[in-house]
């Protein structure tokens, strides 16, 4: 495999709160011969809030990163956080779509002697880049510790699926499902895979946030998932840090660890748990590692349907 190099925009969350994600990203990247070159002098993307408060400065804030990226390398810019990805992607698209906006944003960028020509930088999410550029076959070949016996729910969250369907279907994406299968895990059907995790709702209305978090852990547990796999620090934070509080609020006792997807990949590639910053989570991964088996679990025969039962519609591999 040839080595690859990408410009990388870690985002604020990975600097502190979700440091484990950054550790796993770097470890997996090294293992896959990917060089993640951090964008020099990057700034916050404005997260989910700034665009709803003051739009033009929000665009300018994001466009500064795009302008820096264009100047430093151009080409692809990878973001591991869904909010960062969406803001960068959206700003690029909107500047292209609305020349008047692009003019205003560039006027603001003038102050820092920067300029961004929309369309120059290709904004991508880390997950999509790994799946598309490395490919599932290559990943499968690199798996040294298949995640046999692990039942995982692929949780995409809301920002990545909509409004730009870069992950396939905006309602039922399957990209990460295929990835987890390639790692040897059993992917459980998870109906809420593109539901919102609550975002920063915990800071505004705890009750609303608990409702949103609780329905995710409940549905994942009921679907038979041993863990949720996330691709966004916000999602992971809500599911992990607030799982206990949400359980208490609803007087339930669900236990569903929330991993970053690179932690899951790393585990399958044979990296040691401490190389992937295991242990920093609130809902412990320890039991998961125990659960991994040496061989694929025997194929359970499908439950015999009663004689009078009606057949289910045939489902093609990918719809």
């Amino acid at each position, binding site marked *: 495999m040839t080595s690859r190099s990408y410009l990388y925009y870690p985002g604020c969350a990975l600097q502190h709160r979700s440091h484990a994600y950054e550790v796993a990203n770097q470890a997996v990247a090294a293992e896959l011969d990917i060089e993640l070159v951090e964008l020099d002098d990057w700034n916050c993307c404005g997260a989910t809030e700034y665009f709803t408060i003051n739009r033009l400065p929000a665009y300018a804030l994001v466009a500064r990163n795009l302008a820096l990226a264009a100047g430093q390398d151009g080409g692809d810019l990878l973001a591991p956080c869904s909010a960062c990805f969406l803001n960068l992607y959206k700003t690029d698209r909107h500047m292209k779509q609305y020349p008047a906006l692009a003019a205003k944003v560039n006027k603001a960028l003038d102050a820092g002697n920067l300029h961004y020509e929309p369309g120059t930088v290709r904004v991508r999410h880390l997950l999509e880049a790994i799946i598309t550029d490395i490919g599932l076959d290559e990943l499968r070949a690199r798996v040294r510790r298949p995640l046999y016996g692990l039942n995982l729910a692929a949780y995409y969250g809301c920002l990545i699926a909509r409004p730009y369907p870069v992950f396939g*279907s905006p*309602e*039922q994406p399957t990209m990460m499902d295929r990835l987890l299968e390639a790692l040897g895990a059993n992917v459980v*059907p998870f*109906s*809420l895979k593109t539901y919102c995790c609550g975002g920063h709702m915990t800071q505004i209305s705890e009750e609303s946030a608990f*409702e949103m978090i609780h*329905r995710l852990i409940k*549905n994942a547990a009921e679907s038979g998932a041993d863990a949720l796999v996330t691709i966004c620090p916000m999602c992971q934070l809500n599911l992990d840090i607030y799982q206990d509080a949400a359980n208490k609020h609803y007087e339930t006792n669900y236990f569903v660890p929330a991993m970053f997807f690179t932690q899951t990949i790393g585990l399958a590639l044979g990296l040691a748990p401490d190389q992937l910053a295991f242990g920093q989570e609130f809902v412990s991964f320890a039991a998961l590692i125990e659960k991994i088996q040496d061989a694929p679990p025997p194929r359970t025969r499908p439950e015999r*349907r*009663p*004689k*009078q*039962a*009606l*057949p*289910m*519609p*045939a*489902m*093609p591999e990918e*719809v």
Partner: protein
Amino acid sequence: MDDRRVGVYVCHCGHNIAGTVDVEQVAEWAQRLPYVAVARHFQFMCASTGQELIEEDVRELGLTHVVVASCSPLMHEKTFRNACQRAGLNPFLFAMANIREHASWVHPNDRDGATAKAKALISAAVSRVLRQNELEPIRVNIHPATLIVGGGIAGIQAALEIADAGHHVYLVEREPSIGGHMAMFDKTFPTLDCAACILTPKMFDVGTHPNVTLLTYSEVENVEGFVGNFQIRVRQKARRVIEDLCTGCGTCWEKCPIKVIDEVFEAGLGYRKAIYRPFPQSVPKYPVIDVENCTYFRTGKCRMCEKSCPAGAIDFDMEDRIIEFEVGNIILATGYKLFDCRRIPQYGYGRLPNVYTSLEFERLTNAAGPTGGKVTLRDGETEPKSVAIIHCVGSRDRNYNRYCSAICCMSSLKFAHLVKEKTGAEVYNFYIDMRPIAKEYEEFYHRILEEGTHFIRGRVAEITDAAHTAEEEGKTIVVAEDTLLGRQRRIPVDMVILAAGLEPQADAAEIGRMFGVGCGTAGFFTERHPKLDPVATMTEGVYIAGACQGPKDIPDTVAQGAAAAARVLGVISQREVTLEPIRASIDESRCSGCRICNALCPYNAIEYLEAEGVSRVNAAMCKGCGTCVAACPSHVITGAHFTFEQVMAEIDGIMVDVYSESPTAPLAEIMA
């Protein structure tokens, strides 16, 4: 100057032309063109008064050629040719200048420009018409037989109309039995009479009619020829059951050990054997062997059907049969395909067991269906206590199909009634708009309202199994914005029915190409005129009927089937058809026999005469497309009505100086 005298008529087309083009000035200017004896302008040239104007002038002023400047020749060329003919002028001494589509409509804000362009177009037509020759139409006999493709209710209706009128019909159906979608339905709206009860007598009539050749399990492979004289080749797939011996007793499929899901007739909800006939009232009654699933064809062993058949009718070695015949007219009645609900993953079809499609529900509620008509969940036994019916699935949705599928409102109402009648369940209909628009449909809607069905206006966002509350546990939850209430609603139900939209058949474009019929943006066959000629197509002798032309319910489908039949009977009763004499011809004395034209002709109308060493055009097969004319390296092929001189004269005419007081085409002298 010789004695040629041209009459020019400039049409106002009400406001359509006169609103933009200065028709008075144009007529006055045209009067000064060489050979023009008279130039007039008139409000509606196509009206009888306009046509009479031409006829009078031909008789009284001795016009030798006529030009009408109005709309597209597609619209009224025939009208004005007929006017010329009535006045005793050969209709091919007429030319049309299109100053509506080519001038007024496309330059609505440029009066001077449009007026100048109208003058140029008229000059071109005058210059051309002066070089046109008298032509006589070609007459060919019409073969009285008709091909009907598709044995659903549209094809059945058309076949019976024509056969009853005493003419022969070849009815070709892809499946082992005729009947189409209608044979799968339980009840029909709004009268709730049983679909089979009204359809099967018609199927039987078609199957036994002396004037009908029924070709089931067959597909048209090739079509050649033209109106009145089509040569058809049909491939009849091998049934592997000898029809002359089979009595349809059913022993073979009772003995057959292989059970497969019936994806066609039972919509995937029921089973059939590897030797099967789709349903008890199938026409014809003979079964077919499904080679892909038959044990004998897979392993060379079994032969249970052969051993058990009391008539000895099983023939494993039977081969496909090619059948060739001639017809004069063709009706396409190829029907529709149901929208694939798996394309909307958030509706859970295929994932959530108790989400059904409309066609699955038709089978579920049908007394001859897999549950014997019992409405149950996917477990085959539990009756639902609450059912949601989702309208417009795949229709009126820019992600899938923008059009309205026309039947779903009514079939959803029918489903609501049947569910209530059979189970007493609570029924929730999620709709965008209610469109029960035909006779007695609104009354049916009110009947369903009075039965207590809940109507929630709002497109469903999602159908999920993820329960939020205790009462949602174990249910299928329908999430929608109730746009009348202005809030989101979650309705937990036991069963969901998706009223899936109607789509063109998967191979509609391919079939269309074979028969020379175009498809519109949605993929349905295009009619000759959306209002005034809904069953004819742009190809003479080829008609369309039923849902292949666009989504429609049974009454409309039957009406179209009968309409297409009436059109065909009209053509047959004329005994012969007049073809445009616009044909290519080869000057054999100058043909070098290079044969370049032979292979280029898209209609195989050019044959090479070995003995003479020249090529010759078969006038009956030639469509006058002009390909060979342009390709001939010796310039010895001429297209009648499109000769070199005529086309050059037209070009010359359009180069006129429209601002000149005494206009002449620049090369007129040389050309003359």
